[in-house]
């Protein structure tokens, strides 16, 4: 063991990755400077938690003597929205974030999100800006542009799995999951969609035969809205999108929910789900809710995994190849 540890002190990626990453960050800053989007830095530690049922926070000592525990951020989103409600305009951050228990070729417990917010952008505007950024970065890395297809969540499911997520019966959905090899504990509808997405659709996207390299997926079921606004024209869907590169989820964006009452209801519902799943409930971010109550300007925001982006730009398929330091030798 000690011999192993000695062997693994080195940065394990080629040192050129350091330059490529620095170049990537410089290009990102250039992209946003040209659009007059301000770079900001927001706190890593917070008194408040992210209630998302599928994301686990690192908890640490309180920030101040008379406070409860502090949490390492899983995203800079709440601070960004407080900035926007305070009157800051378009902004972006290259933010270190932390998610406990995530360790796969595509997940590290500590990673970097490029997150940005655009006032008066609707979902389609922001989707186009994500693609513009990716294409500009490809050009900077002397790579050909990628083809991008835009599909709704419904269209993708109909195309790959042959079912309509908004009308399929519970039984037919259950049968389809079984047919694709699911045999564990009963799945809720949302979990069944997650299973079909992660285990059937994403492998199909990765195979690269049937789809273009880039995929803009939009209008998720409203149960997967998180912090996105519901679609006023189709209330069972929400204004959320993802950008996938050969099945790798690179970016997740919302036309932001600005309704404090609705946001509180979602946080409370999240905590109820957490309780049902035997997970710790988290203190709601009252500062965020107060900011929404004060008034969040109409905006859209998106978070993009920086290491995943670098991995894709370099044609690699494992985050370890671009981070050099990995959780095992951190």
């Amino acid at each position: 063991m000690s011999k192993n540890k000695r062997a693994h002190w080195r940065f394990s990626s080629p040192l050129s990755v350091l330059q490529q990453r620095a170049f990537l960050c410089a290009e990102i800053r250039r992209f946003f400077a040209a659009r007059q989007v301000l770079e900001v830095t927001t706190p890593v530690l917070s008194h408040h938690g992210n209630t998302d049922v599928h994301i686990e926070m690192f908890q640490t000592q309180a920030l101040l003597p008379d406070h409860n525990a502090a949490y390492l951020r899983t995203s800079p989103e709440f601070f960004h929205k407080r900035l926007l409600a305070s009157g800051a305009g378009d902004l972006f951050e290259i933010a270190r974030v932390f998610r406990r228990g995530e360790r796969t070729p595509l997940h590290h417990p500590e990673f970097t999100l490029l997150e940005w917010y655009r006032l008066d952008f609707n979902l389609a505007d922001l989707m186009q800006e994500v693609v513009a950024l990716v294409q500009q970065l490809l050009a900077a890395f002397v790579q050909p542009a990628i083809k991008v297809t835009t599909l709704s969540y419904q269209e993708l499911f109909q195309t790959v799995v042959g079912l309509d997520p908004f009308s399929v019966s519970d039984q037919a959905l259950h049968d389809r999951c079984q047919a694709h090899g699911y045999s564990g504990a009963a799945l809720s509808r949302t979990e069944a969609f997650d299973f079909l997405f992660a285990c059937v659709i994403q492998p199909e996207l990765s195979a690269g035969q049937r789809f273009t390299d880039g995929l803009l997926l939009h209008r998720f079921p409203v149960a997967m809205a998180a912090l996105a606004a519901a679609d006023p024209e189709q209330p069972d869907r929400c204004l959320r999108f993802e950008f996938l590169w050969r099945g790798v989820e690179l970016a997740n964006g919302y036309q932001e929910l600005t309704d404090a009452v609705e946001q509180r209801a979602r946080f409370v519902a999240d905590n109820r789900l957490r309780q049902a799943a035997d997970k710790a409930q988290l203190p709601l971010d009252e500062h965020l809710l107060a900011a929404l109550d004060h008034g969040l300007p109409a905006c859209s925001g998106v978070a993009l995994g920086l290491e995943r982006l670098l991995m894709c730009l370099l044609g690699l398929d494992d985050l370890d190849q671009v981070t050099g330091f990995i959780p095992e030798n951190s």
Partner: protein
Amino acid sequence: MSVYSTSQFKNGLKILLDGDPYSIVENQEVKPGKGQAFNRVKIRNLKTGRVIEKTFKSNEKVDAADVMDTEMQYLYSDGEFYHFMDPNSYEQYEASTTAVGDAAKWLKEEDICMVTLWNGVPLTIEPPNFVELVITETDPGVRGDTSGGGSKPATLETGAVVNVPLFVPEGEVIKVDTRTGEYVSRVKK
């Protein structure tokens, strides 16, 4: 009965599914951006050897199978059961012909085998990777022809039949790789 969470899944972990013991061959965690994570596993049924794929919700609990690999000495066969002994505890175990399976043709008394116990009963037997056995029957050797090229079948003391080079005579002790069933060399006594 003890249980494992999917977060403890790793290759070689023994779990119980539908009453059968399985060994995890491959474990892949997949996680959609903002949704439920899943563990996709390939598992080998330790009774039949068949490998199947299963998917679990991450953090789901799965029963552990009380399965243990132990090195044991092969003692003898009474025609119905094969008898093994744990050299540490001197405890003896009876393995059925089903559990022994194809390993039977390599089993020589006193050899050390890997016995997989399930709930204390031998489930599978793995012979040593290399065994040394006497040729009990083969065509007469072509003396002096050590040039290689050409082989002939030879029956060994345990009943196994392997191909040996033409120059190897009856009565000779040879070394065989049990994983491939191939002749390795003659053994000088």
